[in-house]
């Protein structure tokens, strides 16, 4: 099975590193960046499956980053990490195409579960697209 590639975006360095450590132990490929701009650059280099995105960051904030990610690679699933005070922003994120949002502080198990769900969806999505592609090709051949 394909290894999930995760991009972790959080300005809280200790938190991001811990999560990265934990996630990689569970068999994911993880890259950690600490701001929105770096996240966008990383997106250009690697095809990530899931992005875990903090909303409150200096510089490019979470929602703007989300917007850019979704324009560049709409197929990437994004999980938003947010504090309770900015729950509305989390909802805005979902409206902008995020997979889900999780409130900080979060138990790692919950986050892990959420990442797996997102990755699963990504896989299903890819499979569907592949099927569509094959069907299209088949149809063209028939014609």
């Amino acid at each position: 099975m394909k290894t999930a590639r995760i991009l972790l975006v959080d300005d809280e360095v200790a938190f991001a590193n811990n999560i990265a450590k934990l996630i990689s132990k569970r068999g994911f490929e993880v890259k950690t960046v600490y701001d929105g701009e770096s996240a966008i650059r990383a997106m250009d280099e690697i095809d990530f499956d899931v992005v875990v995105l903090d909303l409150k960051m200096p510089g490019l904030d979470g929602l703007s980053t989300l917007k850019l990610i979704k324009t560049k690679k709409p197929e990437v699933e994004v999980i938003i990490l947010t504090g309770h005070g900015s729950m509305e922003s989390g909802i805005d994120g979902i409206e902008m195409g995020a997979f889900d949002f999780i409130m900080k502080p979060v138990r790692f198990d919950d986050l892990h579960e959420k990442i797996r769900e997102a990755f699963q969806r990504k896989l299903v999505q890819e499979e569907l697209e592949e099927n569509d592609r094959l069907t299209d090709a088949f149809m063209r051949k028939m014609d």
Partner: protein
Amino acid sequence: MKEVKSPNGEKPREKHYSRLYRKFVLLTLISSLVPLLLVGWGIYIYYSNFSRDRMNIYFQGQVESHRKIIELFLSERTHDLQLIGQTHSLDYLQKESNLRKVFSVINRQGQYFTDLGVIGEQGRHLAYIGPYNLMDKDYSQTFWFKELMKKGIFISDMFLGFRNDPHFIIALLGFEGERPWILRASINTEYLRSLVENVKIGNTGEAYLVNQTGIFQTSPRSSGKIMGSSPLPVSLFKEDSGVRIMGRDGDQSRWPLSRQIVAYAWLKEPHWLLIVKQDYSEALRDVNHANQATLIFLHLSLLGIIIITAVITRTMIKIIQKRDRESDQLNKQLMQAGKLASLGELSAGVAHEINNPLAIILTENQVIRDSLEEVPGLDEAFRRELMESLSQIDTQIQRCTLITHNLLRFSRRTKSIIEMVDLNAFLKEVTQLMDGRARGMGVQFLMDLEKDLQPILSDPSQLQQVFLNLITNAIDAHEGRPSGTIRISTRTDLQKQGVEIVVADTGSGIPAHNLERIFDPFFTTKPVGKGTGLGLSISYSIIKKLEGEISVQSEMAKGTRFTLFLPFRPLTDSRRNGPEALGQTSFQDFRKEAKK
């Protein structure tokens, strides 16, 4: 915003009110009294002038008509004599019997003449009819004899003459060939005097005649005797006729008597002055009465206006004071609201800041757990103990999370949004907020909540305010008591399609006379500075706005019981469109809704 409730602030406020009071009163009085006084005085002056004019005209009329009467009388008597002189010869008249006949003819209509005589050129009577013995008198040296010789006809002033009695005469000159003779009659003085002296005006009015030298020709009723000298200098009256007011401010220096109105007219022949006069005060008595009444009315009106102004202004100031007090209270309330809002912001900030380290601790916890798995050959007891500690850390962090989330929720509740509310969960949350305070007072919450209560559509932030108010009051009602309970119960009311909530305490209770006022704004029994008196009135208006009902029962020393009713769905469903409006108070449900 100015806080004026402090004892130091009270005095300037009081001063301000009394200044305001004085200003209002002064302005009102000026604006109402000045026109009133102007009109009052105007009427007074106009009316006085008007009545003085009327009086002048009246007196003028009196004096004119009497002058005419007297002049007519004198000219008639003169004519009588002229007729005799021209129609009879001296020879005829010299005979006493003839003269008597003539005398009786001219006196037929009235006793106008006292006597009648024919006098020769030497100045002695040729014949005489009358009551006096004047046959031997020599008139050739008298003043009238000389005047008559010059003028041919003469009317004398009053004089005493040989008879030593005031009288006046009409004499005319006739000629028998070249020989002059004189027809002379003295007029009935009484008759003339009756013509003049009988003029009566009020108590002080009188009429009289004076000659050119100021000698009374008739007797005035009060101010002198016939042939006496008049205190009024004749030189004052130069015009043919007129009316003058003498005395005081008029011609004071030459008028020693009381103030009088004097009408005068000069007769043509003899040149006598007819005077009709009356005390000014009596003449103007009615006018003065009327004016007095006007003035009394005016001053009563003034008094009335002053009193009314004072009363109205006092009432007004009281109203202003009340309004000020209310606005002070509202300001206080506003400050309170502001405080709450900033408190909300602050707590949100704090919660947010704490959430980040909590998140890190949680992940560190996980890191340790993970690492522990990888350590081989660890003592099983030690591993178990460590794991227990780690899960205890986890539990405590969850507890912290609950607190920060509650704080965040509190700060979020400043917005007014209609959403689904699970009343049981909601009431638990509110009592949790107040639990510390209640325990401090020895008060316990008893929750008697109906299972599977249907959620209602309402505004949780406003409901929170209501229940916080009710519970705060309930806790305060236990002051001075060692312990007590606050029972909160919910019950579905299917008939009314809503939920009934009861908040019942075991506090001191509310006296009956206060019970009907507790929902009034600014009504409070708490000490100054403790309560604004707005809590229950706001609660009442909130419940009404949410289409609910609120009522209260209380028994002294037993406790108070608030019964609330909230409908499942308000008729005016003002739910906002958007994910939040669909959400429920529990976050998990909310997220599910949002995902849809």
